[in-house]
């Protein structure tokens, strides 16, 4: 089959690789009809995430048709259309029973767990197409994918619903939703969202549905700010405005009740701390640039809440621990427990309360995926979301 493979920094190629097969009883094979490039794929593209091997198939946002199921899979049937969560979770362990699917204790093969156990204290769960720290599973930017524990993860989509309407259930919609859930929104709350990429935009939408009084969105790409505004947010362009002063003024001097860092480790901006972070990352003195997170901690009101869906992987310098403690802040973060949120979000989509199609700026053939990566990274204003369509010429 054809698949998008990682070859090195800023080098991804569509190659011919072996077709996946059923290996374990609960597996399924999915014939992929739509798959997207995620902002976190750009972290792989930029080689900010360790544990990549040349030839790895990328992609963790995908959906398609079930073409084969293992002998132990009692749930899925051939021909069903499913969206696959990017987190691989067994459904049986202590964590899955608590619906903390992104903490699944079993999905990461034992021999892949040493690095994350060393780095984080406990081994991480597995994900599709996202380095060998999280399992080394082939991703979904391909014609087919093998889905482990397919009786737990994939959600069946009713007939007649376009791929574009439901594809983002795989990652960014639940991620934006959980970001807003983690704000513990109360009536009257003002929520500020750093970053109007896909997750930030879905967080804006989700915060309003979950009862935020006002949402303020921060970015510098005009097109992305425009989208945030169309969803009901007030907007701040950080290139034109001093963000902390603006947030204070816009909230009568109190500050936002909750702040979301939907930026993560590759912050933009020309501030001194960000430039210093950039130098330190380049010289491996630190791994993560945390400019946005510093802004969030200083920007939120005293006693406020912070939610971090943005991806970080390592350690940070100049983390404002004093502000965190003295202001009495709460922080919630984490990879998304996708399986937990999929059913309620599918219902909101089917009821017409959430629309995700506005985000898609480009639809490309899978063969054009390298161009999609380049443009998604370099032309962030125009390329808000790229969806890839495999051609399946041989089948």
């Amino acid at each position, binding site marked *: *089959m054809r*698949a998008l*493979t990682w070859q090195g920094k800023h080098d991804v*190629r569509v*190659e*011919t*690789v*072996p*077709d*996946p*097969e059923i*290996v*374990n*009883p*609960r597996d399924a094979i999915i014939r992929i009809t739509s798959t997207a490039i995620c902002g976190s794929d750009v972290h792989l593209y930029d080689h900010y995430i360790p544990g990549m*091997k*040349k*030839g*790895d*198939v990328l992609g963790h946002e995908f959906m398609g048709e079930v073409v084969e199921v293992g002998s*132990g899979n009692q749930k899925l049937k051939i021909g069903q259309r499913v969206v696959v969560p990017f987190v*691989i979770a*067994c*459904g*049986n*362990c*202590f964590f899955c*029973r608590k619906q903390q699917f992104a903490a699944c*204790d*079993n*999905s*990461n*093969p*034992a*021999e*892949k*767990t*040493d690095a994350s156990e060393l780095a984080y204290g406990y*081994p991480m769960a*597995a994900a599709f197409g996202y380095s060998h720290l999280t*399992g*080394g*599973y*082939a991703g979904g930017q*391909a014609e087919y994918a*093998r889905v*482990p*524990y397919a009786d737990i993860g994939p959600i069946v989509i009713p007939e007649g619903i376009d791929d574009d309407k439901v594809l983002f259930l795989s990652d960014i919609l639940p991620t934006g939703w959980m970001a807003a859930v983690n704000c513990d929104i109360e009536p009257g709350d003002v929520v500020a969202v750093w970053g109007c990429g896909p997750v930030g935009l879905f967080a804006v939408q989700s915060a309003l549905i979950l009862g935020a009084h006002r949402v303020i969105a921060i970015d510098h790409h005009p097109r992305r700010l425009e989208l945030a505004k169309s969803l009901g947010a007030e907007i701040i362009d950080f290139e034109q405005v001093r963000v902390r002063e603006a947030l204070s003024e816009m909230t009568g001097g109190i500050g936002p009740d909750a702040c979301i860092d939907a930026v993560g480790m590759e912050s933009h901006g020309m501030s001194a701390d960000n430039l210093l972070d950039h130098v330190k990352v380049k010289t491996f003195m630190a791994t993560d640039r945390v400019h946005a997170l510093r802004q969030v901690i200083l920007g939120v009101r005293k006693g406020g809440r912070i939610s971090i869906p943005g991806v970080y992987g390592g350690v940070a310098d100049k983390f404002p621990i004093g502000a965190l403690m003295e202001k009495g802040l709460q922080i919630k973060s984490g990879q998304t427990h996708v399986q937990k949120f999929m059913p309620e979000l599918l219902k909101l989509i089917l009821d017409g309360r959430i629309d995700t199609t506005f985000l898609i700026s480009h639809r490309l053939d899978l063969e054009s995926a390298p161009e999609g990566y380049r443009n998604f990274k370099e032309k962030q204003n125009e390329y808000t979301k790229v969806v890839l369509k495999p051609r399946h010429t041989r089948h």
Partner: protein
Amino acid sequence: MANRTSRTRGGDAPLSSARNPNPAAAGLPEADADEVLVGRTVTINRPRQELYDFWRDFRNLPTFMENIEDVTILDGNRSHWVVTGPADSTVEWDSVITEDVPGECIAWSSVAGASVPNSGRIEFRDSSNGRGTEVTVTIAYEPPAGSVGKLFARIFRREPNIQARHELRRFKQLMETGEIPTSEPPFAAPRDEE
């Protein structure tokens, strides 16, 4: 239940987490202070008896222990172990059960003359907060010298503690999910190999 009382001097932590563990204090038969001790505890979300029963039939062990080629049951207490090494070589020894409390613990020891003297113990305890069964494996072995020692080191490839925790993790995965996850290429995780 020797291991329950084999605590570190540093409080309630088990002996396997001690900075300088002494196997002789771990309740392992035949163990002496020169041996290397490895140990690990996992919580498995299955009933204690089910886990004990699976482990007690040593013929099941090769399904999740990647270096064990075969275990033959000689009689109720004795078994013969064949462990694979590099270049199709093998190491073999006879092992005898030294303690067996159904549903609770199994202890074993290699018989005299084994090329790699070793002993081990697995305990199954109900988690006190209803999270399943806490399984603790403790293994002591005499670091071998000479060519057998080199072979043994290559069999275990890495630090034995890492090997032990991978195998305990695979046991947990098999018991909880019914399968052992893998992303081995080419078919489990197709990749463009050079």
